[in-house]
């Protein structure tokens, strides 16, 4: 119990430090790297919650591939962020109020892993027993993701596919336009 508390406090402190560093930095590449580090700490956080599959996804997608895609897209951004000179008091107050409400609400949450909490009562026992008896797979996450909630995962796959195709279409059109522009050497498209 104590060791868990120490690990959690350590991770939260690092997360807080990264958050403050993100606020301070104005260089885009540091922002990308710090966001990646934040994802990595979040992955460790998920491991302390015993959500290994989520941690794996966070580490590979959040810390890995999205950093690469950000870096690839960064070449088209200015290197420095613009300084924001507007007053920051109102956003700060709204953040603090929202954070306070969330912390206040968290006292009503059931303890993590408590067997009698509602989320472990409704449909979860069926999934746990069914994963053993009906599906025969040790990893319950996979049986929920691919079998019990197969329809949702199908939707997710189609969302990834649609998003990818949409980005490809957007970027492809632009290259064609700039090619045409080079040929005709007129117009102000894009």
């Amino acid at each position, binding site marked *: 119990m104590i060791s868990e508390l120490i690990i959690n406090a350590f991770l939260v402190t690092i997360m807080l430090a990264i958050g403050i560093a993100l606020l301070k930095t104005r260089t885009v590449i540091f922002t990308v790297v710090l966001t990646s580090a934040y994802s990595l700490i979040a992955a460790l956080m998920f491991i302390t919650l015993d959500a*290994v*599959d989520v*941690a*794996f*996804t966070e580490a*590979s*997608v959040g810390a*890995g*591939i999205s950093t*690469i*895609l950000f870096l*690839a*897209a960064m*070449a*088209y951004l200015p290197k420095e962020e613009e300084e924001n000179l507007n007053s920051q008091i109102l956003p700060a107050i709204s953040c603090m109020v929202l954070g306070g409400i969330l912390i206040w609400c968290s006292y009503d949450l059931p303890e993590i892993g408590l067997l009698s909490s509602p989320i472990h009562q409704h449909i979860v026992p069926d999934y746990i027993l069914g994963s053993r008896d*009906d*599906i*025969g*797979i*040790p*990893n319950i*996450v*996979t*049986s929920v*993701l*691919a*079998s019990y909630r*197969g*329809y949702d*995962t*199908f939707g*997710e*796959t*189609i969302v*990834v*596919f649609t*998003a*990818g*195709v949409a*980005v*490809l279409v957007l*970027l*492809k059109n*632009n*290259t064609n*336009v*700039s090619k045409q*522009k*080079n040929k005709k050497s007129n117009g102000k*498209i*894009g």
Partner: protein
Amino acid sequence: MERLVNMHKNPILRISTKILFAPIILFGLYVQFHGDFGPGGGFQAGVIVASAFILYSIVFGLDEGKKLFPPNINLFLLASGGLIYGGVGIASIILGEEFLSYNVLGSSPQSGQHIGILLVEFGVGLTVSNVMIALFNAFVGFKSGKDK
């Protein structure tokens, strides 16, 4: 990405990329097909396999990366992943069950579930990895109006 052009001249990067390329894909396949027994699955495996190809493209340049993994195959596999997933659903309808009910796919309900989950995860992995590679190629190969 003009800073990345000369990366293949660095022997450390070049050789370590060549050494790491196959193990990364092997690990991706392990995560893909071992997802029933341990953490992992199609989404994670797709990203890991994509990262191997992206690493190759970063070090050796986009053109070499496209030689290794041609864009038309990439786009074909990108679409076929979703089709495999939907095809499993259609197959279970044809065999007389509801959409994505894997029980009828095998000789027993349990083996049907195993086959269905394996195929579905494979479809997810195929789509995710190819979307990631295609996005990276699109971002790096993108020519904005400014630099012609």
